[in-house]
């Protein structure tokens, strides 16, 4: 009987239980089939009716990249002394893009799918999770371009670099999803939350080593102070640094692997940050389930 439902047993032997009781994120992955369909719908609907379609996923970051490259790199000279700074900049932008997409899309996801949320008892985490995967699909072409760019400039990674790349992605997934869950729940009650996201994303963009290299900060008067430590407590900063370690560092040689271009013990910091992000995600899930019961009536 593989016809059986993924969610609840059918038949008189099924237990008497509370309807719609959910196991949160675990239930989301138990219903992978629905998740896949929702992700597919998200990807298809985003550019439906547009002639250029998925190409927009390339155009917007390309323009942004061009502007940053010109203004920050050439006019302001923020990347002076950074070889292959295009790869340096782009690897950071990819991560920040993935994060902001997950965060802002996830925050809006429950309100957007209110029609379903009000009518069906589903694990509601489904919607932020599916937006995370949708933004992953949209970020992937950028990673390909980044990879091609890194190859051209002589990318030859070791295991450490691959680990760094994977770790960076995992941190953004866990941390971004956690924030998206809490904000999605908040957004049901007060639509102010989707506006906070924009502000928050702007803050993230400037508080990661995207438009300036990490070395500029480490060597500035703020280097070695509590401020730098605080800066390194930002999971997205760590994720960006990990991604730069993965794509940029191997193109410029081993002398760039450590300080001042990267904080010391970057991989260890990454592992720790991933663990912290998972704890954060578990916490956010609990907050989400606390408010979930009121979604249907408040939408």
């Amino acid at each position: 009987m593989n016809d059986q439902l993924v969610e609840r047993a059918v038949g008189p032997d099924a237990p008497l239980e509370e309807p719609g009781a959910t196991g949160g994120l675990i239930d989301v992955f138990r219903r992978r089939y629905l998740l896949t369909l929702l992700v597919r719908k998200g990807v298809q609907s985003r550019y439906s009716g547009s002639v250029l379609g998925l190409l927009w996923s390339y155009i917007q970051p390309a323009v942004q990249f061009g502007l940053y490259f010109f203004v920050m790199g050439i006019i302001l000279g923020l990347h002076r002394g950074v070889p292959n700074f295009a790869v340096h900049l782009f690897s950071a932008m990819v991560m920040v893009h993935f994060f902001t997409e997950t965060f802002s899309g996830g925050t809006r996801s429950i309100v957007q799918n209110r029609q379903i949320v009000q009518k069906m008892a589903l694990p509601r985490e489904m919607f932020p999770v599916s937006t995370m995967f949708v933004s992953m699909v949209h970020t992937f072409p950028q990673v390909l371009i980044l990879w091609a760019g890194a190859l051209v400039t002589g990318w030859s990674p070791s295991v450490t670099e691959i680990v760094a790349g994977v770790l960076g992605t995992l941190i953004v997934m866990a941390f971004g999803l956690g924030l998206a869950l809490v904000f999605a729940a908040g957004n049901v009650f007060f639509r102010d939350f989707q506006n906070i996201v924009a502000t928050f994303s702007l803050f993230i963009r400037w508080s990661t080593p995207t438009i300036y290299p990490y070395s500029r900060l480490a060597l500035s008067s703020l280097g070695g102070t509590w401020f730098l430590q605080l800066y390194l407590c930002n999971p997205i900063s760590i994720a960006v640094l990990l991604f730069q370690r993965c794509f940029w560092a191997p193109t410029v040689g081993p002398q760039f692997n450590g300080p001042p271009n990267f904080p010391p013990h970057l991989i260890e910091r990454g592992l720790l940050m991933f663990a912290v992000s998972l704890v954060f995600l578990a916490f956010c899930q609990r907050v989400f389930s606390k408010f979930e019961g009121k979604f249907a009536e408040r939408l």
Partner: protein
Amino acid sequence: MNESIVVDHASKRFTMRYHRTIKQMTVAAMRRQTLSDAFLAVNDVTFKIEQGESVGLMGLNGSGKSTLLKLISGVMRPDMGRVMTRGRIAGLIATGAGFHPQLTGRENVYLNAAILGMSEYETKRKFDQIVEFADIGRFLDTPVGFYSSGMFARLGFAVAVHADSDIFLADEVLAVGDRPFKKKCMARMEEIKKSGKTLIYVSHAAASVRKMCDRVLVLEKGVLGFDGNVDEGIRYLHYDDDDAEEVGSEGMEEQEDMDEQLGADI
């Protein structure tokens, strides 16, 4: 017997908020107006439904029928008391939920079926039946945004009535569709009833409740006012007055009977 639905002193409180922004709230507070009011949409309701029973849920608009269905389907949780169900719940409660106008009918069938809890295999197995029931012909591969409202609703309906379930909740049953489609729906509802599923049937049409159900629950402002025999329930609601008139008018009896059943009098 096997209990299918147990509602035990369940209550659901709704809060009406009159003001949403800080500015409005401040102004209201200064004028000493109330900021919010709470009321019980479902008030201390208790009943049990056995497996295979068909129960009509009746009551005037705003009496809490939909809220009670949402408590049973698990979309909402009771604030007090508890609601327990056995097995999978389906029904005409989320027809067309998640239909995306830019996806084709075919894609939407799969998505909607998955939302209703069907597996890929189950959807594939029933796909032809669903399409036949919806009767949308060659529009199947056009985006549903181009469908007429009737076609859109029929497709949603078709998916919903084909989901395997133990409990079937039928709200808004005959709100859509033309006459032939309504007839088809009624026939399908009877099939569902005969298959031994627990059925909760929400309707204002006394005749169709009489036909479908063997028990009636009547809600009055959130309180369970009546629980028992179908005819008594309809009398309790005074819905039988209309019946008397209609039966009295001779000639188009059959026609009227049909209208009654299909809820055309609403």
